[in-house]
């Protein structure tokens, strides 16, 4: 009985718990409840993934599609949550990262936020998570807009809470708010154009009704608006201007979720609209989406990595690296073949593990040192061995060294580019990795080969409740680099599903 309501429960549990938060007192209660809620969502997501994925039940089975009409209002009139091979996979990433990061949050949040604000922090935190989970499952384009805005509004406040550490967070937050709202506004205009020609908002219904309308100018205009709006949300170059300040000055755990998950959800909506709603035929054969995204993805990888090299703050370095990683995801999207899409989707998974893990490490450093300047890390390799080992392992993943998960996604991306005969793009992926070597080495060199300063001499290893969750994520990213059958299997299943849609 409860199994039938899983799609709704996954969103509603954190949403309702968020509303309870403000009446809880100080202390650890808000954290405990938030952790329980996020783990409950994660557990339900796993059950849902097993129900949907053919891979986990029987390799020969085709992936199932679960349709959940909210309030039992029949589709296409009511709002539908629709879970298929693609979004079950993204859902798993979102729920997994939020669960681990929430578990980590207790000390980090107590350090970064004044005690009387902590419960409000967790309230916004859970709204953010439930918004992201909802966007992933929703099968109704207007509902997607509303849920994007729920998660975005919560994330603006969360970023602004970085002000207790550094007032620049406020500037980052307001820029993020203005650009994020314009992006969502463009998305809404695109939805309006689609509605004006089809009279429906349901994604499955839209895709059947749009089929004869591919020459319609309103549909092309709609696609342009949707693409630009979502590019802002996923911070695709050159629309990434808001990202470095927002991700660089937010409290560390907020950065972990923003960089690891929030921008990926924007990318997911792009996959969803381009492949299942509008169709490969329209997006890639009729319109020159491929070459346009190749250009911007290439620039994102090169400019993002190059700017990351020049940063002096660890969190800003990681933020610029995210700009580059989004470039890889967009590149895989634009290749529109099985290997390319698998690469993009598995990179969503792998990068979420690595980058969230690295931001958790940045949080540990901020907890111990009170800052995240790279210069302050000198000599900490001996003082905080486990933390710094996590930093190094995550960094190797960003480079894409073999036996890390970054290698797996880049392998698929390069094969995808070669399948299409696009050797320059394969070369761009390699150059991006070279640039990543430089910015990761810059940090590793300071950590291990510089003498510790006087203030750093007294630093000791951080408490296990911080180090352990960071290692869960980094360790998982190493594990999925050695045995990628689960992560790339699910991604491949999702990629095949996407290509079979048109």
């Amino acid at each position, binding site marked *: 009985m409860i199994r039938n309501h899983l799609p709704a429960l996954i969103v509603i549990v954190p949403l309702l718990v968020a509303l309870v938060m403000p009446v809880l007192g100080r202390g650890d209660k808000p954290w405990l409840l938030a952790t329980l809620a996020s783990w409950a969502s994660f557990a339900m997501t796993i059950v849902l993934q097993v129900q949907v994925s053919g891979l986990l039940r029987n390799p020969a089975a085709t992936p199932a599609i679960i349709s959940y009409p909210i309030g039992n209002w029949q589709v296409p009139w009511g709002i539908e949550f629709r879970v298929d091979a693609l979004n079950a996979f993204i859902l798993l990433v979102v729920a997994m990262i939020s669960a681990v990061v929430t578990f980590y949050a207790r000390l980090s949040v107590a350090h970064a936020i004044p005690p009387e604000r902590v419960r409000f922090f967790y309230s916004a935190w859970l709204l953010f998570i439930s918004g992201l989970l909802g966007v992933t499952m929703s099968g109704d384009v207007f509902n997607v807009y509303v849920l994007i805005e729920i998660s975005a509004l919560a994330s603006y406040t969360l970023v602004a809470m970085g002000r207790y550490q550094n*007032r620049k967070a406020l500037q980052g937050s307001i820029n993020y708010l203005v650009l994020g709202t314009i992006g969502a506004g463009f998305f809404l205009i695109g939805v309006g154009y689609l509605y004006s020609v089809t009279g429906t908002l349901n994604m499955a219904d839209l895709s059947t009704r749009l089929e004869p309308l591919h020459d319609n100018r309103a549909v092309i205009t709609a696609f342009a608006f949707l693409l630009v709006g979502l590019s802002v949300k996923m911070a695709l170059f050159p629309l990434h201007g808001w990202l470095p300040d927002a991700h660089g000055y937010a409290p560390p755990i907020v950065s972990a979720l923003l960089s690891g998950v929030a921008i990926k959800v924007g990318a997911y909506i792009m996959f969803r609209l381009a492949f299942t709603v509008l169709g490969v035929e329209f997006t890639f054969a009729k319109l020159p989406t491929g070459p346009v995204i190749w250009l911007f993805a290439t620039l994102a990888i090169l400019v993002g990595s190059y700017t990351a090299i020049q940063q002096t703050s660890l969190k800003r370095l990681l933020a610029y690296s995210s700009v580059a990683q989004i470039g890889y995801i967009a590149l895989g999207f634009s290749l529109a073949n099985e290997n390319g899409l698998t690469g993009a989707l598995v990179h969503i998974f792998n990068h979420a593990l690595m980058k969230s893990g690295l931001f958790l490490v940045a949080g540990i450093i901020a907890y111990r040192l009170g800052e995240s300047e790279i210069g302050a890390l000198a000599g900490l390799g001996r003082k905080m061995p486990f933390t710094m080992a996590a930093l190094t392992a995550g960094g190797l993943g960003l480079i894409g060294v073999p036996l890390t998960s970054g290698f797996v996604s880049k392998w698929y991306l390069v094969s995808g580019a070669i399948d299409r005969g696009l050797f320059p793009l394969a070369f761009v992926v390699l150059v991006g990795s070279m640039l990543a070597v430089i910015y990761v080495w810059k940090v590793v060199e300071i950590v291990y080969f510089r003498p510790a300063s006087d203030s750093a001499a007294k630093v000791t290893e951080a408490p296990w409740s911080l180090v352990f969750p960071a290692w869960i994520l980094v360790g998982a990213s190493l594990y999925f680099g050695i045995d990628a059958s689960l992560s790339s299997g699910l991604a491949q299943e999702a990629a095949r599903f996407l290509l079979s849609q048109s």
Partner: protein
Amino acid sequence: MPFFELYNYWIFILLMMIGLYTIIASPNLVKKIIGLSVFQTAIFLFFISLSKVAEGTVPVTVPPAEVYSNPLPHALVLTAIVVSVSTMAVALAILMNIKQAYGTVEEDEVDQAEAH
């Protein structure tokens, strides 16, 4: 003439451009937020214009009318207004914090304060 018949769509575009221009051109953060509000209002006008059916009346009539406007975009706009108001509230709360932290809401002065 179709140009004048579709005047509400032209106003939508005009309002959108005014909003975006204000966001880009004004160094005052409060004015930027006002620009953002104008931009969102333009989108509401776009949705409302979509719902208009020629010669149609209000959708709620007793007894039911033969030709009536499409009520769905109205419901959508209502939701979008709620989103817009919440955005405004969050934006103004952040601006209050900026004023507290920097003593100004002019973007160039905030940048200057950070440069020192």
